[in-house]
């Protein structure tokens, strides 16, 4: 799996509701046609707020912990 081809939305440093707002904006705007989008966050609540919004837009979500307090949410269009 070629990580470098997957577009990344980095919302580290942002707290609620911005990780969610920016992911929604990306899925409806700039990254509208992408199949997979990686969202990076260091805000734990985003792990439970972003997935429902992404699923509503037809994506499935896989969460991986990258290090202390940082996560990658991989959104893939179903």
């Amino acid at each position, binding site marked *: 799996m070629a990580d470098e081809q997957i577009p990344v939305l980095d919302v580290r440093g942002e707290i609620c*509701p911005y990780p969610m707002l920016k992911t929604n904006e990306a899925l409806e705007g700039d990254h509208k046609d992408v199949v997979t989008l990686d969202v990076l966050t260091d805000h734990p609540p985003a792990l*439970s707020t972003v997935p429902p*919004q992404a*699923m509503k837009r037809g994506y499935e979500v896989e969460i991986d912990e*990258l*290090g202390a307090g*940082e996560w990658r949410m991989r959104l893939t269009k179903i």
Partner: protein
Amino acid sequence: MTTDSLSLDNEKPNALRPVSGQTYAGLTVVALTLLAALFISRSNGEVAAIWVLANVFGLTLQRARFCFASAFRDLFLFGSGHNMKGILIGMGIATIGFAAIMNWIIPNPGAGFLPAEAHILPVGLSVVVGGVLFGVGMVIAGGCVSGSLYRMAEGYVASWVAILGVIIGLGALTLTWNWWWGFTISTEPKVWFPSIGGLGYTGAIAITLLGLVAIYLLVTFMEFKNGLFMPHINKKIVPAMNFDDRVRSTLDPIFKRGWPVAIGGVVLGILGIVMYTIHMPLGVTGELMRASQLGLGWMGVDVPVLDGLSTLGGCTGRSGESGLLGHTFAITVGLLPGALIGALFAGEFKLRLPTQKRRYIQSIGGGVMMGYASGLAIGCTIGAFFSAVPSLSLSGWVFGLAMAAGAFTGTQVIKRIG
């Protein structure tokens, strides 16, 4: 790139995973906070008990990611009632316990006395203005007072700024309190459901629980209308292959993964009851009020004698408990090590600096609004809402509705800030 996985899909299920540095730091904080409790207990056992309960309070807020700001905001922003449902469940549980305690203090609620220490606050313009202002402030700052307190311990620098704002706001309220007292608060009634027209405890509990259920259904309906899916996150379940995995499969749901918000609500409801049994319901702004008045004193500003405070309960600054190790100190400061322990065991502690400068302005501005508002309403989301509704007080409902209106307004503001 990926090191460890949150979703149990560890590539080598048989490998012993190292205990992280954050876990050791967490154990150290556990030892230190228990030592502090031991030290406090030498002068005051009750305060020591409150300190330990406050540790659990902070741990619960952190683990369940309990967030009043998101509970109100996300209803309007995304049609999500996730956090609000947890809060409603917690208040429902606390209602039963609070009623039992109040029934023990005041067996005859029609006799004209109010139970001491219950958060039965004046209802009037002050609560409405305070609620709306608080609602706007918490959405702009990205967290209410209790939320900002536990995020301070998780390493959010913006939350330190927000709490500084709260203290400044409480200072401004201190200087204008006597005007508000004369203008409206002195004539505002304290409405306690059990004392009204023969309702008694049974009627008051019924009204409160029916109200909570009605709002729960309304929230569920809002979710349904917004077509919100419940998340189904990919989880590869790996069978526990060795002792290490078995231990982790027991501990991870408590210390590693976040708690379901409903569990958080249940624990907070029970904590509120235990806290009230010992002395008084949960509240966090009393200590910040004290801090703001100390600050005013240091700056050489005369702190006026605040009218009417002795007739009010809730989160007012308590003259009798002004010591460093008073009750309000134990609750507010005690939640910090609890939240820190939660963050460290989960490996979530991180010094987080906002990437955009305007977030600092949002934090301080929202903080000042919340501070002024929580002084005016005599409590924040915890003291004037989460502890007031179970006190069978009308003020909790009015404050909650006003906060909803404020949160709606705040949502419009942050949509424009971006």
